[in-house]
């Protein structure tokens, strides 16, 4: 089937999509957007987090057919040209990235948190990022990055 979906503001089409594919697979393998990561593919880790119609979801559990006609924003769509989004910049500055596999999902989840709650408490940060697992950093630097991004914006 043909899938029509608006990705990062641009209408895109993917052909020969098998309805059983996940949205994550379509983004990575058919639309050339490997930012969103495929780690667990089971909703457990959050590394595949993207905005779907403006709310963050685990794209690994969205059947491609369900994305038809909808808006998707991936980590690739957060920066404006060469200017990183404050959340991205803070992840770089705080050293909140080691292997980087969890990072795109965390960046999208943190971006969403700061849109809804510009000055989150530590507890709010922890709860908002509970669905994003990182096996490298121990989370402290990630919390630092989100606090810095909140101060910067």
């Amino acid at each position, binding site marked *: *089937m043909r899938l029509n979906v608006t990705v990062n503001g641009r209408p895109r089409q993917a052909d020969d999509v*098998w*309805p*059983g594919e*996940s949205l994550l697979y379509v983004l990575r393998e058919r639309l050339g957007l490997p930012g969103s990561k495929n780690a667990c*593919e*089971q*909703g457990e880790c*959050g590394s595949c*987090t993207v905005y*779907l119609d403006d*709310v*963050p*979801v*685990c794209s690994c*559990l*969205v*059947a491609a*057919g*369900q994305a*038809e006609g909808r808006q998707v924003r991936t980590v690739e769509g957060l920066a404006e040209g060469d200017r990183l989004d404050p959340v991205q910049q803070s992840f770089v500055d705080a050293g909140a990235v080691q292997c980087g596999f969890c990072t795109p999902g965390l960046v999208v*989840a943190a971006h*969403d948190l700061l849109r809804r709650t510009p000055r989150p408490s530590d507890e709010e940060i*922890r*709860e*908002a990022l*509970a*669905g*994003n697992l990182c096996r490298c950093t121990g989370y402290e630097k990630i919390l630092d990055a989100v606090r810095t991004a909140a101060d910067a914006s």
Partner: protein
Amino acid sequence: MIPFDYRRAGDAETAVAAVAGNPGAAFLGGGTNLVDHMKLGVAEPDLLVDVTRLPFDSVDPLPGGGLRIGAGVRNSDLAADERVRTRYPVLAEALLSGASGQLRNLATTGGNLLQRTRCGYFQDVTTPCNKRRPGEGCSAREGYHRYHAILGASPHCVAVHPSDLAVALTALDAVVRVRGPRDGHGERAIPAAELHRLPGEHPEWDTVLGHGDLITAVDLPPLPMAARSRYRKVRDRASYAFALVSVAAAVELTGDVIGDVRIALGGVAHKPWRATLAEAALRGRPPDRAEFRAAAEAELADAQPLRDNRFKVPMARNTIVSVLAGLTGEEPR
């Protein structure tokens, strides 16, 4: 995953007919359970009928004061609904205690109720499991069963139902509205407490629904006492974990005694467990810890824990006591 077709339903009638007419078809809500199971090989539908674009996506007032929650309402939207937060806090708390933000944004009311057990053997197609393949045996009875049932289990299955939402709805006397292949243009109403079943001889059936039965909505009764209600979930991590034990409760004091009370337990049985024995023991009694404890013990008297989940019995008792104490002002909420 085996190949399958995908169809988007425009109205309930077409959706029901499409699934009812094909034994291999399934409704698709947010997909957070079904798509996962398809990847694992636990579910192998050959047709998915997407019901998320049916017009069941709002929360509406009912005549008489209740609320009708459309089956397609997302868990995150329901938890954020102001009427739910103020009039049925137990429901908002239960929803927010489940899964993660990214999953609640996808998960629907109908799909949440019909999610399947998280028993590890059920999800692992290489191990025997009576729920997945009846007659094969139950790997959990003698295996890993820390999370499993202490009430109402059978020799055939000791799994628990994982939904937090369902526990809150059971305590609230909610009613599930269903439209099935034999209901014509009408719908039937099933009390939330009777939607899920105990495993008995047929653990393959989670609920009383048949193939092609579509959940269209869940009705909340007015229940003014629910304004004083809460959900407490005990788990291995502070967030993002299934319940070891959970308690949904609402209490109404009449003068110095408990006038009315609702208690449901999660994480203890194959269905949300309405604690009717505890409720009966508490009506008309003073709200103190000794009474709460006696009522909890009455409810749990028939508990039959497994080798590695004995801790759930005192855990359930203590959680009931502390939730009731919190609700009746014995301790800060």
